[in-house]
């Protein structure tokens, strides 16, 4: 039933399967490869019948399909790529908040005519110099709150407790 796919259809299928693969992270690599190979063949078969756009639509949303496939697995692994995304999100928020703190401090210093001030942001020592001729920041130290929040986000998003169920 399969026919040669056009480049556009191949790209559509590739893009869809990339999305599915992201959510198949809890599967072993070998099993994930098996599933994706079969989905690739099934999409080609369906595309020969109804076209690739409809074939992809019939597969449903990548996340929903992947969730059902993962639920069918007897043993589920932690999803480390989602864990890394979660930890990255925490780091990004902390970085943006830190930048807000630095800019706020600089603004306040310039508002009183400039100078040097020392502060602390979630455990990180911040030394800000803001004068007409100089604008600099010096950061020192280690933020345990950010570290703990990132590790927690990693473990929670990855569903690390699945390791204990083996």
């Amino acid at each position: 039933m399969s026919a040669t796919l056009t480049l556009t259809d191949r790209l559509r299928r590739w893009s869809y399967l990339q999305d599915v693969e992201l959510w198949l992270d809890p599967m072993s690599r070998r099993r994930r490869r098996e599933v994706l190979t079969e989905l690739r063949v099934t999409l080609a078969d369906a595309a020969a019948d109804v076209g690739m756009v409809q074939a992809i639509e019939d597969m449903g949303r990548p996340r929903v399909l992947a969730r059902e496939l993962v639920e069918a697995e007897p043993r589920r692994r932690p999803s480390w790529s989602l864990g890394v995304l979660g930890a990255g999100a925490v780091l990004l928020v902390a970085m943006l908040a830190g930048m807000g703190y630095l800019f706020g401090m600089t603004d306040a210093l310039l508002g009183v005519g400039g100078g040097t001030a020392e502060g602390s942001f979630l455990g990180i020592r911040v030394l800000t110099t803001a004068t007409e001729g100089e604008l600099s920041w010096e950061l020192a130290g280690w933020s345990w709150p950010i570290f703990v929040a990132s590790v927690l986000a990693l473990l929670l998003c990855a569903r690390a407790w699945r390791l204990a169920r083996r």
Partner: protein
Amino acid sequence: MTTFERDPQLLKGVLPMLVIGLLGAAESYGYELVTRLQAAGLTGIATGTVYPTLSRLEREGKLTSRLVPSPSGPARKYYRPTAAGEAHFRDALAAWGDLGVVVSAVAAQREELR
């Protein structure tokens, strides 16, 4: 055939039985099975509904599969029921029959009271 919206939960419950039933009649690969289900009357059934069921039944040992080279692309995975799958089909069919009797009895009572 009367067209009505099927309850997704009901379909989810009965789909494994239908899949094993059809594969017991003749082995099929994924998309072929979808078209067979559609031809059997499940016109709205989607590939995304059938494929996880196939995968689950195989992982549960109710289906087995073999790869068959395809002249026009990668090898296709053909599924057929195992002995456990056939036993599951017989049990599910019997349970479905019992349920059908109950539904018919309730419907008959309503008709009598009218």
